[in-house]
């Protein structure tokens, strides 16, 4: 009888060991790839402490220690109650590092204690998640209340701005992910859509061209309006035709030889379409169409103001900083060197890769930062498309499992915190891998659990295991 009770309450059933398992697989696969990335023609042992793989072993061991501490020693309840003090302490550290930290690659975000360096921005993800969960789980919290909205904005905004001040753009960008959490908790989807829209146009104007941004604007508004009331195949063809025509307009203009530039023509056409849409919207009392027209005007304004401000108003050094920020010009040794080398490494892996430790690009140092931010290159080159799918699949599985666990939870705090963890993981995953394959600008943030580095591994371990223990605690009581 006792044995049975013990069995039913054994850790085997109460902790989400599958989640922990995925975490462990990623950590160990990360270690293997770190070893591969520093491997050269004169190999050393994985555990050699003078190498990064050896150090990573230490980080893994200490992370497991931390995980055990969180799971078995610390009371699960403490995280909710200590959310505010932890947030304040880490906020202070974040601020202090600007004055007391050492500069690493142009950003002042590291504390240095002898050989050990530590980045508070990594820990800040945890405390922000905790406080956000705490604030949003208070009874009576509503997004419709301006006070609550400001509160939430401050919880996320303060660390984000300080981190931006440390020039850690990548880490700051991760905080945008908390919008997904807010969306889940009732924030209107239009805010998300609008924000995404603005960011998309802004980035496209600068990285591609104003013209590409205009075409995107047209495509998005067109699709939204046509399919608002359901998908129709004939409308799909219509939309496809219009978008293709718009995309190939420069080529057509070129062929005909009109002196007016494609951007000017496109703008004129869009303005005409806008006028017609406005009229139709007014006549049919279609508010959505009217709003779309407003969005169109705002979009055109945004595209041109971005272009003009960037190219005419900004000083050379300011322009350069933004270009570096967006990865347009990211490296002194040539535009796009990092991305190019990274894509060569990944692309050369082919379907099944070159085999473990057989990569030429990563082994011989063509890819910069290959054990930290560009660890995915090693995966791509040595394990190929299959390896990449497996890694991405594991992350998706991890995030999926966290979300479903969070949804199952009866405590708001646990649910919201779970979503925060999922959002952080997702942002890191998408930005990091997107960066290595040229989908995202080069902003250095690590690949969770796999990239070399103690701060990052510790932070993700704590982040995930707090959720594991919160999740476990719920099962214990219900």
């Amino acid at each position, binding site marked *: 009888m006792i044995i049975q009770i013990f069995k039913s309450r054994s850790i085997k059933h109460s902790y989400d060991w599958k989640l922990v398992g995925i975490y462990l697989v990623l950590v160990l696969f990360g270690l293997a790839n770190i070893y591969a990335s520093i491997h*050269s*023609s004169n190999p050393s042992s994985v555990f050699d402490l003078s190498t990064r793989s050896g150090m990573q072993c230490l980080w893994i061991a200490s992370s497991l220690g931390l995980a055990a501490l969180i799971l078995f020693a610390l009371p699960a309840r403490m995280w909710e109650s200590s959310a505010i003090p932890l947030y304040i302490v880490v906020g202070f550290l974040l601020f202090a590092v600007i004055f007391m930290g050492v500069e690493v690659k142009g950003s002042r975000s590291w504390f240095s204690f002898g050989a050990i360096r530590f980045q508070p921005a990594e820990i800040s993800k945890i405390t922000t998640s905790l406080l956000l969960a705490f604030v949003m789980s208070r009874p009576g919290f509503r997004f419709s209340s301006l006070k609550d909205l400001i509160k939430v904005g401050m919880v996320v905004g303060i660390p984000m701005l300080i981190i931006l001040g440390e020039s850690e753009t990548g880490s700051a960008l991760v905080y945008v992910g908390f919008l*997904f959490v807010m*969306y*889940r908790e*009732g924030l209107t989807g239009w805010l998300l859509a609008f924000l995404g829209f603005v960011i998309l146009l802004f980035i496209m104007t600068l990285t591609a061209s104003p013209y590409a941004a205009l075409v995107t604007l047209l495509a998005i508004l067109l699709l939204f309006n046509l399919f608002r009331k359901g998908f129709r195949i004939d409308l799909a063809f219509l939309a496809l035709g219009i978008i293709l025509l718009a995309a190939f307009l420069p080529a057509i203009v070129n062929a005909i030889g009109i002196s007016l530039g494609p951007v000017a023509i496109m703008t004129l056409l869009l303005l005409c379409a806008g006028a017609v849409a406005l009229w139709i919207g007014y006549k049919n009392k279609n508010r959505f169409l009217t709003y779309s027209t407003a969005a169109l005007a705002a979009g055109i304004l945004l595209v041109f103001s971005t272009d003009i401000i960037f190219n005419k108003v900004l000083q050379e050094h300011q322009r350069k900083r933004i270009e570096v920020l967006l990865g347009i010009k990211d490296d002194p040794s040539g535009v796009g060197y990092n991305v190019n*080398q990274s*894509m*060569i*490494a*990944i*692309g*050369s*892996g*082919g*379907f099944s890769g070159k085999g473990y430790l057989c990569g*030429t*690009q990563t*082994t*011989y*140092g*063509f890819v910069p930062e290959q054990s930290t931010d560009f660890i995915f290159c090693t995966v*791509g*080159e040595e394990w*190929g*498309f299959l390896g*990449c*799918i497996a890694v*991405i*699949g594991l*992350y*998706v599985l991890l*995030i*999926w499992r966290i*979300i479903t666990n969070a*949804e199952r939870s009866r405590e708001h705090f646990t649910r919201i915190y779970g979503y925060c963890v999922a959002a952080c993981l*997702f942002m890191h*995953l*998408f930005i990091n*891998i*997107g960066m290595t*394959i*040229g*989908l995202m600008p080069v902003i250095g943030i690590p690949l969770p659990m796999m990239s070399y580095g103690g701060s990052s591994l510790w932070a993700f371990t704590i982040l995930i295991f707090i959720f594991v223990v919160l999740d476990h605690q719920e099962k214990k009581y219900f």
Partner: protein
Amino acid sequence: MTSSRKNKLLTGLVVASLILVIKLFVIQIAQDKYKIDSRNNSMVYDIIYPTRGVIYDRNGKILVGNKVAYDIMVTPREVQPFDTALLARTLDVSEEFIKTKMAEYARDRRKIGYQSVVLLKQLPAETYMKFAEFSYMFPGFRGQTRSIRDYPFNAGGNLLGYVSEVDAAYMKRHPGEYRSGDYAGKTGLEASREKELRGEKGYQIYLRNSKNQIESRFNDGESDQEAVPGKDIVTTIDATLQQYGQELMRGKVGSLVAIEPATGEILTLVSSPGIDVDILADIGKNYQKIIKDPYKPMFNRAVQASYPPGSVFKLVNGLIGLQEGTLKPTDAYPCTKGYHFGKHTLGCHAHPSPLQLEQAVMMSCNGYFCYVLRNMLESNKYKDIAQALDKWNDYVRSFGFGSPLGSDFPSELGGTVPSSKLYNRRYGKGGWKFTTIISISIGQGEIGVTPLQIANLSAIMANRGYYIIPHLIKDSPEVEIDSKYKERHYTLVDTTQFHKVIPGMWRAVNSGFGSGGTASIAAVPGLDICGKTGTAQNPRGDDNSVFICFAPKDNPKIAVAAYVENAGFGAAWAAPIASLLIEKYLRGDISRKDLEKRIMDADITWKVKKDK
């Protein structure tokens, strides 16, 4: 609502990861670009150069071999401060040179990386030895040996051609075959036999890191390729004879060609002035000088210059007359200092008259051959002179004139043989008659031939009626020649007719001075040389001196043609040159030392008008 938002977020997660996967699919599977880029990134091909094929003469002597050249290489990254003055002295260059070079490397250091670059090319062995002694004082500098062309004989510079580094235009013409820094034959045999001679490059593949340092062999050397040495080529040239021919032609502008009649093999082919082999060996330094030389030494006159054949062509016209039946050996025609028509005269020199065919050949009578051609062209076998001339044209072409012989020279000229079409165009149909075209009776006018074609005529005479296309490459196990170089080409004149003309050629040489024979100077007792002189008009100065001959009369071993521009009578220069060459070939040494000395010492290039 919340549950649907959860699902929307999960959908977003899957869509976002699918975007990543699709992009991965594009760069890892759909596109090849990155795989190729990764090779360029990490693989270094260390080229192994094959040794170029050796070119032999017909007796196994090496005409073109290979020798070692010493280059000085420098790896700028490894250079430490050194004594510039000492290095300059050791390498026999100015201090300034070293300083500019080092400054250049410092400027290009990013591009050079850890690679080595050439500081000096083709050092003399002595300088190299001196450097080797002191090299320990100059870290970063090292010697490197390379195989270059070597010419043991000063023979056949023009035939052999030169080898030099390929330029961008050359690489464009031969896509994929050459890389910058490769060498290729540019003229002569080196060019025409480039494919056999060059061999195949091999390579060793190394993997390098991002700092351009070699890390390891690729695939443990299993993908490496051995170099295949170039094939050796045996030429038909007789090196000793070629060298002797060049000495005879020194100071003259023209050509000297000797063929082995039975095989069509070219024993000697001199185009003068030519290129000395030591100039070939260092073509880069001498190229501008050669190009600017008004006598165009790069121009191979023997196959690329078209001249009037002059009186040697009388042989052809005589044979055609015999074949046509419009001439009998016993026919005699008068010649009173030429052939008279209307108010005009085609002049001739003083000789007895009338003459029969043999004597006419021996004394080279102009008048006689005017009758010969007229009788043929005005023969009532043909409906008009145009038809007759076209028949004549067929005969002449069958002797190898009028179009390239098809020898293995890369750019052989065809020459011209007039036809009725030409004269119809010039004078109108029916607007011309025999006297209009009378000069072709004696090998003047519209006829243009190359010295090689004249030598081939000589071989036809020697063979009594056929030739084998003259060629320069001998059949060898390594390089097989085209079967067309083994076929006999018969002329349209029966072989039986030749016996009626050849005694005239014999008498031209062997009748002794005072007999009226035009080529007595060419006689060598016991060698039975048969020859025919020619004196071809040259509008740009003195007449060209022409002579063809073969020896011995029976079972001939060598047929020669000599053509010297602006040198005067055929007997004056061409005949002695050809005769000395034959003596050298058949006897090995020269009995007529005075004649040899006179010919070799003469410099008559001044008579040739220079091109501007």
